[in-house]
């Protein structure tokens, strides 16, 4: 049969965003692929050069629309490195809890979007239902449901409200049971297994060479988690283990491994949250007023000339890295240069090449298992 190119995207159910995957097919078999990115480039890095350090946080929220809190945190750590701020421990705990809630919400969004990719519509509504719980919690903190603008340089905007801890624990405990429910529906289903297992092999070595990070390499047995390898917040004080999958095949991690590692990561996030809310300094049911030194340290607004800040943060999709150079040309209030390293920008072109040799029906299964997010990719 003659080969033909199919253009999937920019509006296509498989893309999970706005990008184009050009696929060359021979019948049902994929023989070549080509990823085209850049549809929603907003120039965040350039915009940041004319903004205060505080004003950049909302832009970083908008880097990823399903994982705003982690991206804002990621920037905040770089800015704190630049401005040399000591963050109160209570604020670090609150950041940890909020980031892990966001990780749960983001992974639920991934699972919910992955269900229709494989053909299971029920999975989507279930995940959306449970995601609401964590969005409600984040709303209590940041006041918003999508872009919170919650972390501040030196702490957080508001303290956790009274009663938040009880609701958090109740919801997380309920969600731990829900994870088992998901696994009952998915892992017991032969169809789910045959669609995921043996599909989309990605070798650990290849992925590390390409620069893929996060759950995608942990699924291939690489025990690298920035939270564990270079603990930045209070991740070394709470009880958790990185979810690392040992792939059964020598060819590397398949879609099922990536699915499993994210499910395990949700469990670990729950464990982390439950531990952190007990260990939080200052008590879990006290509410400090805005700007209290327990939750927000004084931070300078101007960076010294030539100073640099760097953060290596474990976002929900991999390691997000921020590099800020302050000062320069006497503009102490604005960064001279802000550089964002997005995990998905590296992953998507790599994934496009791993699809070669599989069927057309495997394209959404493989692409979805890597959890693409185009907001951060195009920046």
């Amino acid at each position, binding site marked *: 049969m003659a080969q*033909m190119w*199919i253009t*999937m995207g920019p509006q*296509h*159910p*498989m893309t999970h965003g706005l990008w184009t995957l050009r696929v060359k*097919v021979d019948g*049902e078999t994929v023989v070549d692929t080509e990823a085209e990115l850049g549809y929603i480039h907003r120039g965040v890095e350039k915009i940041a050069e004319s903004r205060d350090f505080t004003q950049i946080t909302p832009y970083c929220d908008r880097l990823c629309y399903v994982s705003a809190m982690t991206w804002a945190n990621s920037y905040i750590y770089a800015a704190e490195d630049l401005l040399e701020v000591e963050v109160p421990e209570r604020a670090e705990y609150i950041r940890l809890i909020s980031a892990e809630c966001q990780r749960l919400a983001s992974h639920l969004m991934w699972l919910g979007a992955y*269900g*229709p*990719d*494989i*053909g*299971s*519509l*029920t999975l989507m*509504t*279930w995940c959306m*239902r449970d995601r609401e719980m964590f969005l409600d919690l984040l709303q209590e903190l940041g006041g918003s449901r999508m872009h919170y603008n919650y972390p501040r340089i030196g702490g957080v905007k508001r303290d956790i409200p009274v009663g938040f801890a009880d609701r958090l624990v109740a919801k997380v405990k309920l969600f731990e049971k829900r994870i088992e429910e998901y696994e009952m*529906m998915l*892992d017991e*289903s032969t*169809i*789910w*297994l*045959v*669609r995921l*297992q043996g599909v989309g092999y990605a070798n650990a070595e290849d992925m590390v060479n390409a620069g893929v990070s996060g759950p995608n390499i942990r699924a291939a*047995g690489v*025990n690298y988690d920035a939270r*564990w*390898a*270079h*603990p930045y917040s209070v*991740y*070394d*004080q*709470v*009880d*958790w*283990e*990185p*979810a*690392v*999958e*040992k792939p*059964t095949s020598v060819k590397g991690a398949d879609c*099922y491994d990536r699915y*499993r*590692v994210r499910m*395990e990561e949700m469990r670990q996030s729950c464990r982390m949250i439950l531990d952190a809310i007990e260990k939080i300094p200052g008590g879990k049911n006290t509410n400090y007023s805005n700007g209290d030194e327990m939750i927000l340290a004084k931070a300078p607004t101007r960076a010294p000339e030539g100073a640099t800040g760097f953060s290596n943060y474990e976002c929900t999709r991999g390691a997000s890295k921020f590099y800020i150079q302050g000062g320069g040309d006497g503009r102490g209030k604005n960064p001279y240069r802000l550089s964002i390293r997005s995990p998905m920008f590296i992953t998507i072109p790599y994934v496009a090449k791993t699809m070669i040799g599989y*069927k*057309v*029906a*495997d*394209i*959404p299964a493989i692409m979805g298992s890597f959890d693409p997010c185009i907001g951060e990719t195009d920046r």
Partner: protein
Amino acid sequence: MDDKYDLVGFFLDKEGVFRSNIIKLLDGTAAEESASSISFAAGTFAAVNIVFLMLFFSQFAILWIERKAVARMQDRYGATTALRSLWVGENGVTAGEWWNMLPFGAGKPVGAINKWLNKKYGNRDENFPTVDRVNNRSWMGKTIVPGFFQNVADGMKFLVKEHMVPQRADKLIFEVSPFLIVSSTLLILGMIPLSSGIYATNPDLSILYAIAIFGIAPIGVFFAGWSSNNKYTLIGGIRSAAQLTAYEIPLLLTLLSVAILSGTFNIIESIHFQHAAGSWNIFLMPLGAALFLITMIAEVERVPFDMPEAEAELVEGWWTEYGGMRFGMLFMAEYIRTYAACFLFTHFFLGGWHLPLQGTIGSIEFLGLGGLYLLIPGAIMTLIKSWLVFLIVFVWARFALARIRTDQILEFGWRMLLPLAVLQLVLSLVYRLYLFNPDDMSAQNDVAGGMAWDAFGIPFFVPAATTLFWIGMFWIYLNDEDKSVAQERMFHVQTVEPAGTVVPGQE
């Protein structure tokens, strides 16, 4: 046993009220000589129309069942549109005023009725438009079969949409293929009986007819996919053609085994057989029932076998380019096929119009309860059974399972379904020859049904033993997996030392 409510008999019986009156009416006129034919034609017309209307309007129920059952499975409410939402709008203005769009002013009376209804019952508080919207979902706070009329609203939406043909499409084939699909689908309903007395037609070979007609639509699907001149539709159409043989052959063999067991190619007679045998076919051939359901899900292209319209990779598969009412008609055709599949399962395996435990309950003489039970019309029983089949099998499967790949259904069909279908065929032959000998089977037309299968002197032995055997086989199939491999796959997330015990970077 024949159903008591004999619609066809009422209209077509020459001595019956209907035809004898027509013949009497035509006495002395020019049409006197052909009065018999005219009355027959009138009776057929009436019967066919009534049956088709019954089948059509009962189809609304399955759409509703799917919406609401799915909503319950997914922890949400589902569609809540009430009948009232169709005419009462926000502040007296219904969205769209669809009646003005009908040709020749055909919608004017609807508009007038709407105006009156809005005046009498409409929401008139323009300060609370949102409250109006919410109130429209109920009447005086009471919802009456919420969501039942959502499909009417959807259909109206389709009706007023533009009909677009892709510029480089093969226009003739593009326009013809929906008609091919929809008309062949409607023809299936022609031979589906609601009961022994309520059917449009009853050809002798109705089982063969049903399968032959079912097989036409995939050709239309292939035409549609090819003629749209779109790569997604092309792949969808070719997928449909590729998987056709994988499920059609097991389906044919399963139906052949039904026909062999009941000794007839006629649907109604195969139901009579189930009554005469004293057991529904599902207990005599559980394997056949399972095969029939699996292949039928593939035949009607629902999840897990909906590769031709796999919306994740093929946008909407072979019907991507259809919009407006053509999409609506194709959508309706898909549901009619599903509905017909439910009917066929009811008739072939669930005893058609017969009541559950008809012989046992029907013979209760206490207070005449048995007689009351037998008054339930067979058509109602058929509908309830079909709806339950739809709910329990088709809807549940669709929303609990994922979609499989084309190569996987081919492998599944050829390697699993086909051998099992052949096995079922052999079993049916054995049953027919040694347990249901045609000489012993007299079509018993009494309430209790037959005991022809009274094998080895033990009543109920054959259905009970068969069912238990296949349940056991299924249990073995489910549990005979390689546990060690499965466990390794499912629980092999590595754990390293708990946090805090190791300072990273310093070990």
